[in-house]
């Protein structure tokens, strides 16, 4: 930094300028998302193996999922991606109030998704579809339907955990927007939070057909 030019308050000591800092943060988030792809990838691989071995049992078990709630949730989540993208755009164009509005809407939609997911989990509990000693299913598919539901709970549970972490990040971003940390010169935190949120949505875009839409033509 040449003499006489004041440091931007958000510029960390080891970067030359804010551009370098933003590029580093963005690349860091992308690398992290690659990690996440591999993290979910282990589960998708497991799903793929058992789905190809036990297609009938998986289709049968899939019909016990609530396609209406699943579809509503998909719409809710895609809409939250839209509001997130709008929040990023508002931050880039320095409209603080709009950032606020869109972040809060994203959080509201995310919370709605989690609420509906909770209702679905509760239904599964009532229908004794939780894997374990109380699991009930027609004898022919009992074992492999239990595998399907195990995968259902691990995959959607892990996805829900990512949503909850996302809500935490949004709260953080709201605070930073409130106290003026986020400015038109420094808005990369909102951008990379957006990257994370879109990633979590994309995971659901794969989970929904794989879990809910098997064997429906």
């Amino acid at each position, binding site marked *: 930094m040449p003499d006489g030019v004041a440091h931007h308050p958000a510029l960390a000591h*080891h970067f030359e300028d804010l551009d370098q800092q933003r590029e580093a943060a963005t690349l*860091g988030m992308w690398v992290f998302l690659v*990690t996440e792809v591999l993290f979910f990838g282990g589960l998708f691989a*497991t799903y793929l193996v058992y789905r190809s071995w036990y297609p009938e049992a998986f289709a049968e078990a899939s019909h016990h999922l609530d396609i209406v709630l699943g579809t509503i949730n998909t719409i809710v989540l895609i809409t939250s991606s839209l509001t997130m993208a709008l929040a990023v755009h508002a931050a880039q164009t320095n409209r603080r109030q709009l950032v606020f509005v869109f972040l809060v809407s994203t959080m509201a939609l995310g919370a709605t998704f989690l609420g509906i997911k909770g209702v679905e989990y509760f239904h599964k509990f009532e229908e004794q579809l939780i*894997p374990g000693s109380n699991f009930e299913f027609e004898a022919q598919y009992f*074992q492999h339907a239990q595998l399907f539901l195990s995968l259902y709970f*691990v995959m959607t549970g892990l996805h829900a955990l990512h949503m909850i972490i996302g809500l935490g990040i949004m709260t953080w971003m709201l605070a930073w927007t409130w106290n003026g940390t986020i400015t038109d010169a420094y808005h990369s935190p909102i951008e990379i939070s957006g990257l994370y949120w879109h990633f979590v949505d994309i995971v659901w875009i794969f989970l929904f057909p794989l879990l809910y839409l098997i064997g429906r033509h």
Partner: protein
Amino acid sequence: MSSRGVLLPAHHYLSDFGAASWLLTRDHKRVALMYLAAVTFFFFLGGAFAVLIRLELITPAGDLVSADTYNKLFTMHGVMMVFFFLIPAIPTVLGNFLIPIMIGAKDLAFPKLNLASLYIYVIGASCTTYAIITGGLDTGWTFYTPFSTASSTTAVIPAAVGIFITGFSSILTGLNFIVTIHRMRAPGMTWFRMPLFVWSHYATSLIMVLGTPVLAITLLMVAAERLFRFGLFDPALGGDPVLFQHLFWFYSHPAVYIMVLPAMGVISELVAAFCRKPVFGYTFVAFASLAIAVLGFLVWGHHMYVAGQSVYAALVFSFLSFMVAVPSAIKVFNWTATMYRGSISWDTPMLYAIGFIGLFTVGGLTGLFLAAVGLDVHVTDTYFIVAHFHYIMVGGTIMAYLGGLHYWWPKMSGRTYNELLARVSAAMVFFGFNLTFFPQFLLGYLGMPRRYHAYPDEFQVLNVLSSAGASLLGVGYLIPMVYLAWSLRYGKLVGSNPWGAVGLEWTISSPPPTENFAETPIVTWDAYEYATRVEGHVA
């Protein structure tokens, strides 16, 4: 080396002593030193289990410990050494310290994340250590199902959770290195001017970022299966235990390259510095690192030749495993070609480097034996395997780690150690290592299975040799602990460049200032320009 006229710099990264200045530091060099303390602790903890194993195996009868205790001993030895020493050691200590300096940066891209990775490591490692107290772990470091999920009565969940947590530390370190190498290079530090140490850490980081999450999710499934009876890997519930092995080795084979690639980076630096020549075929050595990283992901099936995979899969995995030998051999031949007609000096780091090249070659060539399906079936689960991977992990990684530690110790501490003691212990490590593990090749070929606490009488001579070698090796590891610690206070001061080496780390004071460079350097030279840039030994 003489300390005439050499003074400690007025300000350096060790100047400040407060506890908070260490625990809350964002300086990559301080984080590296704290990692050094942590991995050293786990190295000696893992070593203690090895001592007990070798003591038990002196006699054919299982008389020192019970079979169950023995299972726990080799499991905890493997878990401690693999997850808490070999995987983190070189990247988090030498990599953390050197990568920013070598590319002319003030710090890693994410200093707070770097400190966080240290704490995550400590928490994870403590969690797994806690498992020792609460019943130990007897699954082997591989956690094979259904034993780990259905049968074992030991503390599988705390151990797995600890490794899961430590995985995040590994991922964050890799992520930090990748971003740093992409975004923090000084002006003029182009990709092909970077030291090969940085290249090999880049390749290592790719594996950390791509492989570790798969192990994490696999261990999560094992824990879920143990807790909730999910049955994903339990044949009694419709699951498939071989699927666990696929997922486990998808990470754990590349993890071998997480251990050995940084070691190769160290060796490239040492060979160039002590032969005073540029590394022969720089570009090939750099790309060989990437090739190993990529091919490393395609060979996991060679751990499963006898696990019931199809013969066609085995043939493909066999072929791909042979392929990994090509970039590995490129490196070995290029180091040798670098030494050819070089002006070689036999300082301690070079002794370790020469040791590495020899032992890695033996480990690599026996790896080819194991890649061949027919031979592997014969020696699967025998001491041949044990000997092979110890030649790579101990003969490779630990030799390079010690060589690197001795080479950069004057930079890290500003002081030098007792050279005579260092050479003696390097020789002890080399001979002790060979005496420990070469007999195990023979034992394995003769049919002694691994993971048993008793064995037939005819194997005793070779086992006694192995245990004798292990005690020599253990002393060889303890001596550097003593003289390196001693040197911190009493060692002679060295200037900024005691070896007369090139590389940005030797242009700044020893120990370096907190900000590394007062002014960002502008790089106009290639790595290893020894012909034109040698400044000569200070001595």
